[in-house]
């Protein structure tokens, strides 16, 4: 078995491999000088399919995929994601590529800028715009955050057709069939940048993940606020007590152990750096009631951050935890975040990482 870590950076894709998650070999860059804002490793297929959201700063964005671990790449002639004519919109960036459950083996979701959700039924070769969200009456009030206006999180329910998305800004929305009737699910999440700090929608939710206990239990790292929901987002409750700050970008959850999740607090909205220059991940084992600082293998004197998709977990029995920073350093933990090793240094800004265990 080999662990594969796909590292999307501002100037290309790097692939790291390891048998023990301690010693790593790095290969790349693929797509030299092109931004890789999103990566996915679709292990429902054999061989696994790599998907990347590529952005050539001159020649535009697209999605490409590889069924031979990056030896060759395929891009559909007419583009994987292209807005229909009547929308008068153009794809700006692919923020998220998310393979659905094994029960829907050909379905892959994409979250994009401008704010939109796309569904592929052919493994990520071509995508169709989810009209119900695009035509939502709230759209005119969704605004771009500093990074752009995008759907950046897609969480399909594992046993129903419901799909939950998060966007910056706009917040969390859910649809019972992943297509129509999208309803906001932001109750309890703060939006301090509005006169009404608890609006129905408009929040800048940075990342949402599902707990191992099941799809109803969610964690959200908000633009100011860390929250938990036990009813699939109908109501959110703060779990930020015990953290040095409630601002951050990433949220991770164990795929196996209920109540286990990780966040990376940053100093504040106006100071997006590790508190005191100490790069740390914080882990909860009890669903957010208490938090433990993990520092082993993580440096001090660090004034860079991990962006929302530059962090992931793997599915090994002892969950691997990974993240990369804007100064091009990638860290890996084989023991659920207790200790970290450095996978790579001096890469371009890390934008996206995903890990998988391959046969």
């Amino acid at each position, binding site marked *: 078995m080999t662990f594969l870590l796909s590292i999307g950076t501002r100037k290309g894709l790097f692939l790291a491999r390891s048998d023990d998650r301690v010693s790593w070999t790095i290969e790349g860059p693929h797509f030299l000088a092109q931004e890789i804002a999103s990566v996915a490793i679709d292990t429902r297929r054999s061989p696994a399919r790599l998907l990347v959201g590529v952005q*050539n700063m*001159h*020649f*535009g964005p697209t999605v490409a995929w590889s069924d031979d671990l990056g030896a060759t790449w395929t*891009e559909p*002639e007419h583009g994987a994601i292209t807005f229909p004519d009547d929308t008068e919109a*153009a*794809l700006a960036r692919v923020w998220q590529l998310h393979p659905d459950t094994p029960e829907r083996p050909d379905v892959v979701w994409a979250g994009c800028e401008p704010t939109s959700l796309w569904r592929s039924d052919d493994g990520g070769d071509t995508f169709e715009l989810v009209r119900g969200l695009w035509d939502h009456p709230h759209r005119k009030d969704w605004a771009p955050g500093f990074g752009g206006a995008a759907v950046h999180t897609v969480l399909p329910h594992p046993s129903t057709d419901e799909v939950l998305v998060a966007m910056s800004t706009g917040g969390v929305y859910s649809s019972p069939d992943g297509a129509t009737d999208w309803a906001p699910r932001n109750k309890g999440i703060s939006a301090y940048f509005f006169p009404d700090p608890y609006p129905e929608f408009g929040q800048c939710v940075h990342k949402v993940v599902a707990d191992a206990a099941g799809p109803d239990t969610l964690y959200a790292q908000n633009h100011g606020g860390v929250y938990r929901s036990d009813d699939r987002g109908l109501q959110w409750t703060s779990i930020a007590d015990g953290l040095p700050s409630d601002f951050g970008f990433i949220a991770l959850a164990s795929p196996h152990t209920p109540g286990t999740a990780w966040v990376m607090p940053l100093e504040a909205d106006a100071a997006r750096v590790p508190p005191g220059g100490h790069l740390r991940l914080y882990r909860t084992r009890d669903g957010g009631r208490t938090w433990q600082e993990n520092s082993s293998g993580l440096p001090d004197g660090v004034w860079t951050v991990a962006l929302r998709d530059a962090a992931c977990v793997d599915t090994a029995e002892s969950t691997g935890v990974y993240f990369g920073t804007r100064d091009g350093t990638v860290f890996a933990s084989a023991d659920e975040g207790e200790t970290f090793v450095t996978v790579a240094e001096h890469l371009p800004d890390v934008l996206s990482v995903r890990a998988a265990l391959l046969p």
Partner: protein
Amino acid sequence: MTEPPGGSPGASGPGAVVVRLPGPLRDLVGGRRELSVSPAPATVDALLDTLSVEHPVLVRRIRDETGTVRQFVNIYVGDDDIRHGEGLATPLAPGTVVHFLPSVAGG
């Protein structure tokens, strides 16, 4: 039809428009530096439509799905940037050389 200069008789020559490509786009057309389009399309827009039949990926690199030339791509007809003239409606004549060029941008 599009052919490399010196390709099929009649495809290039005085009646054709020659398209010159920058290095990053040549892999999309088999490594060619130039394409010749004959008969000459009436405008730059028509040229892109013609090219998109055989080279859809190339044309998607030049203009997005709304038909707008990408922000950091420049198209020159002869020595003139079409953004300073008639844009995609810029007329072409037989023998015209069209350059697709990345602008001074990046990071």
